[in-house]
């Protein structure tokens, strides 16, 4: 299921991070992801979101994710 793939990819990219994946519309391709990780500490919002986009590059490219909403937080 897409949500599991997404959270596995995020777990891998942000070890020890708090990961939330929500299927926003129930259609299996509009997701809200929330990532809290120390990796983000000191990074600008855009750099944080770029890391999340990079972690999800495959599902973003192959259309598994049609719409992605991202919320990131550092731990500092």
């Amino acid at each position, binding site marked *: 299921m897409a949500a599991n793939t997404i959270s596995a990819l995020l777990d891998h990219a942000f070890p020890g991070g708090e990961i939330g994946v929500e299927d926003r519309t129930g259609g299996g391709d509009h997701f809200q992801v929330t990532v809290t990780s120390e990796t983000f500490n000191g990074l600008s*919002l855009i750099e944080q*979101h770029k890391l999340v986009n990079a972690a999800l590059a495959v599902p973003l490219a192959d259309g598994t994710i049609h719409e*992605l909403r991202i*919320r990131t937080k550092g731990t500092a």
Partner: protein
Amino acid sequence: MSTLHEQIKEVIETEPVAVFIKGTPEAPACGNSMRAMQALWQAGAPIVAIDVLPDPRIRQELTALSDWPTIPQVFVKGELIGGADIIEELQASGELRTKIDEALGEHTQSVRTVELTLE
């Protein structure tokens, strides 16, 4: 006739606020494009909107330039500010208006579109 890559680069570098969206300002074709347009409008920005739907190469060239995989993409004075989430977050905190006011100085709220010439 300049290539798509050159046209996109030129729009990004010459337009104070450029937003690449799916669809048009009057009829955005996706929720995130609409969210970015609304946030920019609320921030009083002079918006220049470019539709990426007419040709998939537009999005490919844009992503090659910006290293950002999704649409919309908002640029202020040539700098990628973000997608819909960041733009909305900045607008909610008032930072978007400050960032635009500081970057542009005197400006008026407006919306127009730029069409890329596809060879």
